[in-house]
């Protein structure tokens, strides 16, 4: 019942977005029913539509959770993008170094591995790397805020630039296959591959890119829920976000919580590497993230910073991404920009409500007099 009430507004926002989007489609000169039929039909059909939709949703679940955890501690993590880049590169590095020698299709060795670890060791190690490196990168702005009071919005944005530039540099000068015109590292060893769902679940074609990372994302949702609402640590994180003065009064070190929440947030963002590096590209590919970190903010917002909401919102955004490709290709006039219009309107509606409540509500902007 409570959940239903919580979901009501996001659902209304989505419905309105589709309505307004439909008007846009009419103005462009297409039939909205056809366009929406195309959009949803391509995204929600079995097996290809759903397989791809889940694949696109996976990284957004991770980044949505990342933003949500930080938000529950009263922090706006704009840095998921940088956190996932650094983590993805580090994960690829582990996959390369511990994945043994890799040969290309012509039998030419392209890997630079030191040793060859079995998949049973290497996959957990690589996943751990993704989480730890993302967490470390996320903890930096947390520490800067706790120690110096530097605002996390500024520091996370700045760290995004540093992260992207840093991994580009390493890719370009140290880990690219010689002569490869594409900005990407050499591939990780086969032992670092996270299998596609189709590889072991009968009935799912193996051509679909949705991988075990999707299952990890579901587990992450459950873990975040338990962490935030069922543990003492989560209580302290949420108390810090809800009212830092009262948290201090209750003997909670808000500085510690800020660093902790940012580290958890960064770790979750880093898990995008499981899907994108270990599960799909099997290498670090420069600029691989389609703004997952930033879209994660929208996902968290739409999902009300709750794991269940984040999961559903990520599915919606995954649907839009998948459907957008088909709308682009097969509709008369409408391009995939329609998807961005829809996303934007959804966010606009949800944000308009957020103006009236929540910790970043309007009283933050239009301050009432001090009492």
């Amino acid at each position, binding site marked *: 019942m409570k959940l239903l009430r919580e979901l009501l507004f996001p659902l209304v926002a989505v419905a309105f977005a589709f309505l307004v989007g439909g008007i846009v489609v009419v103005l462009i000169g297409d039939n909205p029913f056809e366009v929406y039929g195309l959009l949803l039909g391509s995204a929600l059909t079995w097996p290809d539509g759903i397989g791809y939709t889940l694949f696109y949703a996976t990284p957004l679940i991770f980044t949505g959770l990342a933003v949500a955890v930080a938000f529950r501690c009263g922090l706006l993590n704009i840095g998921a993008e940088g956190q996932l880049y650094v983590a993805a590169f580090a994960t690829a590095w582990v996959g390369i170094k511990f994945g043994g020698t890799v040969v290309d299709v012509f039998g030419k060795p392209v890997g630079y591995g030191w040793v060859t670890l079995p998949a049973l060791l290497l996959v957990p190690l690589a996943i751990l790397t993704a989480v730890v490196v993302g967490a470390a990168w996320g903890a930096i702005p947390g520490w800067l805020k706790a120690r110096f009071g530097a605002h996390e919005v500024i520091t996370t944005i700045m760290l995004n630039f540093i992260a992207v530039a840093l991994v580009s540099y390493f890719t370009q000068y140290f880990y690219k296959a010689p002569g490869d015109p594409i900005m990407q590292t050499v591939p990780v060893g086969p032992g670092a591959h996270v299998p596609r769902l189709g590889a072991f679940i009968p009935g799912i074609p193996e051509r679909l890119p949705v991988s075990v990372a999707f299952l990890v994302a579901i587990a992450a949702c459950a873990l975040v829920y338990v962490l935030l609402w*069922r*543990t*003492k*640590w989560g*209580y*302290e994180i*949420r*108390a810090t976000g*809800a*009212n830092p*003065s*009262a*948290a*201090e*009064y*209750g*003997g*909670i*070190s808000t500085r510690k919580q800020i660093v902790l929440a940012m580290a958890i947030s960064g770790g979750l963002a880093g898990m995008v590497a499981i899907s994108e590096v270990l599960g799909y590209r099997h290498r670090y590919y420069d600029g691989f993230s389609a703004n997952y970190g930033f879209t994660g903010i929208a996902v968290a917002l739409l999902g009300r910073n709750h794991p269940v909401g984040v999961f559903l919102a990520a599915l919606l955004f995954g649907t839009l991404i998948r459907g957008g490709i088909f709308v682009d290709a097969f509709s008369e006039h409408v391009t995939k920009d329609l998807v961005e219009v829809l996303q934007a309107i959804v966010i606009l509606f949800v944000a308009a409500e957020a103006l009236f409540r929540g910790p970043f509500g309007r009283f933050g902007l*239009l*301050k*009432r*007099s*001090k*009492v």
Partner: protein
Amino acid sequence: MLELRDITKRFGDVLANDNINIRVEPGTIHAIVGENGAGKSTAMRIAYGFYTADSGEILLDGEVRAVQTPHDAIRHGVGMVHQHFMLVDTMTVAENIVLGAEPGSAAAIDLRKAAEEIRALSDEFKLSVEPNAPVESLSVGQQQRVELLKALYRRARLLILDEPTAVLTPQEVEEFFAILRRMRQQGKTVVIITHKLSEVLAISDDVTVMRDGKVVGRVRTAETSAEELARLMVGREVLLRVEKAEARAGGEVLKVRGLTVSVGEGGRGLRDVSFAVRAGEIVGVAGVEGNGQTELIETLAGLTPASHISGAVQFEGRNITHAAARQRRELGIAHVPEDRHRRGLLLDFDLAENSILGDHYRRPAVSTSPLLDLEGIRSRALGVIRDFDVRPANPDLPARALSGGNQQKLIIGREFELKPKLLLVSQPTRGVDIGAIEFIHRKLVALRDSGCAVLLVSAELEEVTSLADRLLVIYHGRIVGEVDPKTTSHEEIGLLMTGGERK
């Protein structure tokens, strides 16, 4: 001047105003009293056009008027000052006042003319407000006068004031009452919503008492007493005076020596404060707000940065000058903070979650498990709710949904659960209903009798003198005297509070 006739207003299932009749004579100060939720504010918001009544009529100057919006009300000469001010901090007084009623053409606001008018008004009522000062530079009392000017500038003849003294210090209240009397002299009519009986008796000509959405009485102030008003408000006899036995004080629990706290934001800090609190006694701290009480309690609770503190604080012989808040709680120091919304509660958390704040990491989960024991928390919350009569008795409600008195009872219940050896309690009954005040006072005395040391800070002189066994007076961050609350007079304390010497 104003008459509400047979007004009824429902909010969902709640009957906020049940067929009420209120008549305000022109040129008088009319108090509307009642406990929180009695329907006073609703009635006045209807008069101001904020809400529309379901039935009944509003008469202004003897004629039935349709007051659908605040605009209608303003047009008929009604102004309202809300409990929370509606001011833009970064704009000047004049800009705030003309907001929504800008003089001059649409393009060019004639601020100079406005400032002149405002200055004239300010002089007329001796408000001493500078029109060109930015609002953020004003004290709370001055901001309130800006709100008054806002109404006067719109030619209000009837002013409705919603809990105007809640945010004022005792001196500001005095000044404010003087202003109201001047307004009455100039022929204005004032309606003041309050639940403080002493103020009703001090300022009003007539009183309308409300309870549970109904008008339960209308009396002339000169012909009534605090006891009668309290009985009307609560619906039963209320003990305004605390009953307590002689304190049986034990050994020193808290010992403060030469405590100095550097000036905090908006406060005066503490200078060389020394005193002790013994087991089984209540030591009161009286003083005008902002004289270091906040710093004193927060420092003793471990909420002041260590670098700001010098001197020594001992708890049961142990030096805790720089101990963290959590450590102090573990030693047995509980704290009822002065500002329950800022410090005491997580407003968006439910009652169960609020009932474990500060204790969440040890009890009720006795194990070292990182998981919260939801069942244990719930049963403990139910215990607090039962023992402290928190209403509504639903641990799943957010703390925000409770009235001030019930929020305060929840906090006090939570802190009592710690079985403290020392209780730091600040403004325990601020914004709390009379019935709940009586209840809280009884609980504090009972805690004292069980052997707990209590340090009580309150801006209500009545409260500290009736509860405390010993009374310290604080002024400009110093303890300027100790008096015996049984033999002292308000005059003696008042003199000490304002820096005067003792006779």
